[in-house]
């Protein structure tokens, strides 16, 4: 059963690891991806970004993605936490954890989850540059290609 949260506050990676593994001894590996706010984009310096989402749809869209991961791999649990609101450079944005008996399904499912999250969950980023300008991030063909490889 996937653990899914959308929240403004930060997440504690260690606590999420512990919660995923609590009470079980059948897990052989946990894949982990943490997305963070990078301080540059398209040769401009990024000070912060605001993440907007579609509250009525977001958790359901993420659940569809985790359901698909659980269908494709024999997972022993997974966690997706996505932050929304205003975040500054260096802040955490998203956490993906996938637990399995062996490393390959754990690592593959982790990559799958973040690739699909980037193209199939209703979030939008607006970047604020250090000169005060702001712009919506445009979807990248490379992200579509990454999602399509699965």
């Amino acid at each position, binding site marked *: 059963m996937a653990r899914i949260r959308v929240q403004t506050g930060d997440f504690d990676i260690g606590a999420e690891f512990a919660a995923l593994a609590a009470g079980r001894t059948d897990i052989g590996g946990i894949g982990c991806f943490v*997305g963070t706010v990078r301080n540059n984009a398209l040769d401009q310096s990024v000070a912060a970004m605001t*993440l*907007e*989402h*579609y509250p*009525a*749809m977001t958790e*359901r*869209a993420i659940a569809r993605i985790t359901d698909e991961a659980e269908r494709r791999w024999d997972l022993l649990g997974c966690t997706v936490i*996505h932050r929304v609101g205003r975040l500054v450079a260096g802040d955490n*944005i*998203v956490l993906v954890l996938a637990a399995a008996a062996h490393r390959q399904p754990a690592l593959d499912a982790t990559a799958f989850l*973040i690739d699909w*999250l*980037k*193209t*199939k*969950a*209703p*979030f*939008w*980023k*607006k970047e604020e540059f250090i000169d005060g300008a702001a712009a*919506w*991030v*445009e*979807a990248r063909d490379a*992200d579509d290609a990454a999602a399509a490889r699965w």
Partner: protein
Amino acid sequence: MPDAGTPLTILYFAWLRERTGTAEEHVSPPDDVQTVGDLVSWLAGRSPGHANAFANRRTIRCAVNQDFADPSAPVRPGDEVAFFPPVTGG
């Protein structure tokens, strides 16, 4: 089932919200608006901001009742129809 007088709820996100100047509106389009594509054409006529928001349809995505939907998808009274750019989370 909602009757034909039940309005549609339209939601806008990201730059569609900025260009239309609204996050949510309730509309009752004429009977010949049957699909998402029809609805886009009709909404584009509501204001200069709407026309600007819908100017390039290739850059717009849609969800009907919280599920991604194509321009050919039907819209019915009472539906929640959301318009937004391609997603950029993660």
